[in-house]
């Protein structure tokens, strides 16, 4: 237990450190004294606006979304007992994108901005429900991944179609954002829109922790230990929909975070599903702002999309996992 606590503390510290360092990264280079002016300066100083209203919301949003996606990935892997499960791979993120797109481009968000996360959450819930219906809980690894692939193709096409049908000529350019998410030009408004949902969803997923730990011993053992499986399934679907919907509504579909983070951390918690949940949330909060600021520091020019970076890091990892699983069967 003490060991897990140290790990959590270390990951939390890492997330805070990366967040602070990320405040120094952006398209305008700030000298040390300018940076100090940005942090402590007068409220109408452009430098202060840069640090407090452009960079900080971006870092905070990255940490919130990273934490949510890491947690969702760990929870899905634990419940489905499938190492390849992840919101992006299984089509939950693209379901959320579709939900947000339908609400936003039909002009409904003019009535209330909260309709946007609501739409995304409905889309994510629909995807998660379809997934359970299509693959079932005891389905094989391949059936689940194939169902996810089908959902991704379907939701991606419907998202593109919805954007094509918009009378606004700029809507078509937004395809990239919804299929390959980003944190560019986000503000406190977006943090405000995402935070309540990601937090509530995270609470649902963390509440699944003890049940996931029991489930790792097998379904029958879990039942004899008093785990209520339908309730766990319900909590997990709701939690995943809230987390992924809240995140996707403001940042588009960012894939593979829920795959990379839990797999890197799993050996450090001796594969304990409950400890892994907390560690994945903290690890995700460190990973996503790190990925976001590394790209910004390295590439000066048109911004490289965060969704592209996480996919470039995650997809080879996914393929390697697939290879490992195949060897295990044969």
């Amino acid at each position, binding site marked *: 237990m003490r060991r897990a606590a140290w790990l959590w503390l270390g990951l939390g510290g890492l997330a805070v450190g990366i967040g602070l360092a990320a405040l120094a990264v952006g398209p305008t280079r700030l000298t040390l004294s300018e940076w100090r002016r940005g942090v402590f300066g007068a409220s109408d100083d*452009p430098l202060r606006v840069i640090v407090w209203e*452009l960079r900080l919301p971006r870092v905070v949003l990255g940490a919130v979304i990273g934490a949510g996606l890491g947690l969702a990935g760990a929870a899905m892997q634990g419940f489905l007992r499938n190492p390849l499960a992840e919101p992006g791979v299984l089509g939950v993120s693209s379901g959320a994108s579709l939900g947000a797109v339908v609400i936003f481009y039909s*002009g409904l968000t003019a009535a209330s901005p909260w309709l946007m996360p609501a739409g995304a959450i409905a889309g994510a819930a629909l995807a998660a429900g379809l997934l359970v219906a299509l693959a079932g809980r005891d389905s094989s690894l391949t059936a689940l991944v194939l169902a996810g692939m089908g959902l991704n193709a379907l939701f991606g096409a419907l998202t593109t179609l919805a954007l094509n049908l*918009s009378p606004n000529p700029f*809507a078509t350019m937004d395809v990239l*954002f919804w299929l390959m998410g980003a944190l560019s030009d986000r503000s406190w408004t977006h943090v405000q829109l995402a935070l309540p949902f990601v937090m509530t969803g995270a609470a649902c997923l963390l509440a699944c922790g003890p049940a996931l730990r029991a489930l790792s011993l097998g379904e029958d053992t879990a039942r004899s230990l008093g785990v209520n499986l339908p309730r766990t399934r319900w909590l997990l679907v709701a939690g995943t929909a809230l987390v992924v919907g809240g995140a996707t509504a403001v940042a588009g579909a960012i894939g593979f975070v829920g795959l990379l983070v839990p797999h890197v951390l799993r050996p450090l918690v001796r594969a304990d599903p409950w400890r892994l949940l907390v560690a994945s949330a903290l690890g995700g909060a460190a990973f996503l702002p790190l990925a976001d600021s590394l790209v910004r520091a390295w590439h000066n020019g048109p911004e490289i999309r965060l969704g592209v970076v996480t996919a470039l890091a995650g997809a080879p990892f996914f393929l390697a996992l697939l290879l490992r699983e195949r060897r295990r069967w044969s």
Partner: protein
Amino acid sequence: MKARALGGWLLFVLATAVASAGGRPQRVVSLNLTADQWLLELAEPGQIAGLTFLARSPVYCARWEEARRFPSVRSAAEEVLRLRPDLVIAGRWGAGPAVAMLRRLGVRVEMLDAPEDFAGIAAEARQVGAWLGRAEAAESWVARLEARLARVRAARAVPPVAVLGYSQNGWVSGAASAFTRLVEEAGGRNVAVERGVGWMARVSLEELIRWQPEAFVLPAVVSGAPSLGDELLAHPVLARAASRAPAIRLRTGAVDFGGPDVIATVETLAVDLRAVAERRTP
């Protein structure tokens, strides 16, 4: 039956031949937004056989309501042919394959250039007037243009107002853009030019607020059809910057140089810029 149809066809061909011999095309199709505006300004309504689909959109064309009275085309050759045009007006840029095909099929196609200044626009008016057989209409339009231009130039803001044009997805127009010419005619100077932007560049909000213009020019909002690009223009940081430097809204299609509507854009822009200049603290 067949003979009658053929007879009708011959009669039609003869009629168009006579009409073109009279020097006035009767079925003109436009493949270019500037040409759409010229047709709506200079042609007799009966001469217009088709306008581009862009002309019907309030995003691009001030005369969109008027344009909806005419058939629309998307610059595909077969669509144009179905309208049986005796003159097609296209832009020098774009519409390449369709133009080549129409010419091969014997349709008369004329090309508009992109004018550099108001002298160029006056020349454009006379040229379109000549193509349409409406030289007198063109002459009287040019006379009105010169009067309006003289009024604008007499009342321009001095010294010019520092302006930054920011559009969807963070695009900024620079030295070689039509936007800079519009702004300079209207009594402003484009700060992006001083920052080294050539034609267009994407500029982040971070850089943008450090440039500190006296006024922003933003694209007009499309009602009821949002996009993330438009949402960026409502970013709190930009809204805050706009509390010091007012935001002037301009139709997306108006940020172009050429056609009869440029003068109206310059006039409204000049009024807005003069208002900004008058609020300067001495």
